[in-house]
């Protein structure tokens, strides 16, 4: 995904094309429209879940109610320790969202700054930094994240940090080349000739032109962060029980897949829908901001 963006030319900020939703309707991309709706629902659920279910309901063990099938009272049934699956999946959405957003924020903040500065000030130091990011990119991301968690310990914070740090090189690499190219463009050169400072050039002229790239890559990174996060949790590197993290829930319910499939379907389905939605929306966003896909539109 990252490579397809790398290959595309510098996109310009879309202007006069209407908003994203209108664009989706006009181009009959209804699947992406539904996916956007799902993401909004996911975000709303993550924010407002404490109003519907207490943390107690999501974590308190009630062995008497273990493995109840879906039905009134428990719309998705209960898990192997008698906890309501709706409560757990929704609290899991909150944890997933926090982990994904925070880790992408870390990666964005450090990665974009590094990439932009290295692109703006090419030289020995920037060469070294970019070789270092190449080295990090060549290293498997999951393995890198496992290393960080092994050092920092099992918790939501270290999971976030691990995903964030392992995503930094993606952004650094992504912004290095466009910034370098933009620096040579006439409007930047003209502004510099008028006496603009480096900070002003970066903030007022270069960054707005790579903003669309940030948005598209961030959407895709969110999906990747959710997937890596739940994958690490599945392997036992996520937050400890009874935290209702989706990967932890899938690992715990794996043993019941034959006898009580609803226990694994709840977190598995949620994970599937959210990641698919982010990917679909990411694809649509890329087309939306890519001027070439709007020829004649």
């Amino acid at each position, binding site marked *: 995904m990252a490579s397809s963006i790398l290959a595309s030319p510098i996109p310009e900020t879309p202007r006069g094309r209407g908003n994203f939703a209108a664009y989706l309707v006009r181009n009959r991309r209804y699947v992406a429209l539904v996916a956007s709706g799902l993401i909004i629902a996911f975000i709303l659920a993550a924010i407002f879940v404490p109003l519907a279910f207490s943390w107690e309901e999501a974590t*308190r*063990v*009630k062995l*008497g109610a*273990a493995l109840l099938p879906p039905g009134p009272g428990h719309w998705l049934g209960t898990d192997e320790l008698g906890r309501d699956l709706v409560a757990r999946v929704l609290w899991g959405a909150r944890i997933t969202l926090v982990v994904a957003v925070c880790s992408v924020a870390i990666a964005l903040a450090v990665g974009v700054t590094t990439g932009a500065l290295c692109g703006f000030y090419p030289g020995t130091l920037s060469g070294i930094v970019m070789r270092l990011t190449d080295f990090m990119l060549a290293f498997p991301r999951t393995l890198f994240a496992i290393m960080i968690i092994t050092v920092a310990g099992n918790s939501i914070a270290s999971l976030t940090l691990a995903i964030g740090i392992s995503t930094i090189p993606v952004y650094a690499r992504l912004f290095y080349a466009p910034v370098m190219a933009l620096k040579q463009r006439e409007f930047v050169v003209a502004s510099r000739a008028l006496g603009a400072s480096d900070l002003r050039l970066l903030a007022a002229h270069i960054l707005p032109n790579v903003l669309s790239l940030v948005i598209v890559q961030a959407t895709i990174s969110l999906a990747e962060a959710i997937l890596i996060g739940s994958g690490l949790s599945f392997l036992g590197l996520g937050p*400890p029980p009874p935290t209702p993290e989706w990967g932890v829930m899938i690992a715990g319910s794996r043993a019941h897949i*034959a006898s009580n499939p609803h226990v694994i379907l709840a977190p598995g389905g949620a994970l599937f829908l959210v990641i698919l939605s982010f990917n679909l929306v990411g694809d649509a966003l890329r087309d939306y901001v890519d001027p070439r896909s709007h020829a004649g539109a």
Partner: protein
Amino acid sequence: MAAIHNAFFSKGIFMNMLKPRYRPRCAAPRITLAALLLCAAPLFAHAQTLRYVQGTDLDTLDPAVTRSTPSHIVNLQVFNRLVAWDGTTAEKIVPELAESWTLSPDHVTWTFRLRHNVKFHDGTPFNAAAVKVSLDRIRDPALGSPNRSYYAPIASVTTPADDVVVIATSQPMPMLLEVLAEDWSSISSPTAVAKSGRAYGRNPVGTGPYVFKSWVQGDKVVLERNPDYFGVAGKPARIEFRPVPEGSARVIELQTGSADVVSHIPPEAADEVKNGGKAELHIVPSSFQVFFELNAAKPPFDDVRMRKAVNLAIDRKAIVDKVLNGYGKVPESPVAPGVQGRRTFAPYAYDPAQARKLIKEVFPNGYDGTIVMWTCSGRYMKDKEVAEAVQGYLNDVGLKTEFKVWEWASYQKTLYRANPGHGTGKGSNDANMWLLGTGITNVDTRLRRKLAAGDSSNLTGYSNPKIEALLKDASSDMDLATRMAKYGEVQRIAWTESPYSIPLFDQVQLIGTRKGVKGLVVHADEVVDVSGVTLP
């Protein structure tokens, strides 16, 4: 000569068997014959080979060194000991390689008369010298066997005649026969030990009903029937042991007929095995008990009332029924069934109100610290899930908890790590409670390592003068009945007066066999004797 060889083999049937696809079409009848032979060979072997699938791979097959059940199961077929437990209960010792034995009136000299005309698998004759080599080897600190401490009271092993071994002990040693019946007292061929040196664990040679053939790590161990066995000959011609770590994968092996015996069926798959029609499920009591040990060296569990309180806070019946699908037992003693001299008591009641009252007695404003709980995952039946349930029950009586799941190897390393001067003196001191299990059937070993102050396996820092005195008395008491009574009293103190742990459940063994497989002998410590198994 070469010409004759070529003429014969290039047109012969052997060539077809080796390279059938390179032959022209006209060779079809011969290919068919070859194919028939090729098919028949594995069919024949299949009917004679017992395929045993277990959950973990072997560490070593050196009986003096290994402490793991999967290795004991293989060694039981390859080796004999001087004496053995009668059947599957730890009640009576019977002769095996020793024909008889006598004890001197001062209780320190044991004389064993050995069986005649027994040979090791490599042809070496079995005699007193072989026994001496095996026993001296495990007692030698240079070998570094973790089982060496059991032999500490032995002063010397001497061989006055070719068929007589004399074991002298420094003090009366009531446990000698029990130690000699253990897997680590297996008698190895002195020739093989000398030949293989440090690699003996991969080339074991004994006198048992099966001869060790090969071992490919992570794949399989192959044994073949010993035609010259002195006892009752084994039934299957070959036995293959394979490790399959994933529980559901083991069930599939059983249901597709690629295994004859499968150990450690996961409880949630038990009904599937039972009702699938292709296999039979055997439910056998186990000497394995799973428990949370409580750190007695620091608050809050340094106070016995808190240890009693958490024991009342747990609904064990619900854990057995819901988490273990009913495949477990609510403990009635600090040791599980199958352990020597076990005494039973009334199970702990589930009484959260009483638990809260006890906690209030100790901490009138409630305990405001956090209880650090450690557990392993996948080592014992549903260990992590049971630990999560316990966490829920502790929260219910108002205790705050912090939960950590460990990978087995680092868990063990951390728990037993020496940390002198800090609380328990072990790495376990960083936690308030940690989940463990044990299946040791020897009552002295089992109680001593958990309850004796200063024992290297006592992770809780527990010490109780009454228990110390009882264990000391028992270790030199030559009368079985009064010795067992002393262990019984230790169990009573550990159960009612001053618990050191939260016993959670007694494990049951779930073993699956292909339909028609008969004659499996299962011991309480999860060791299985397969030499008498008949295949359908």
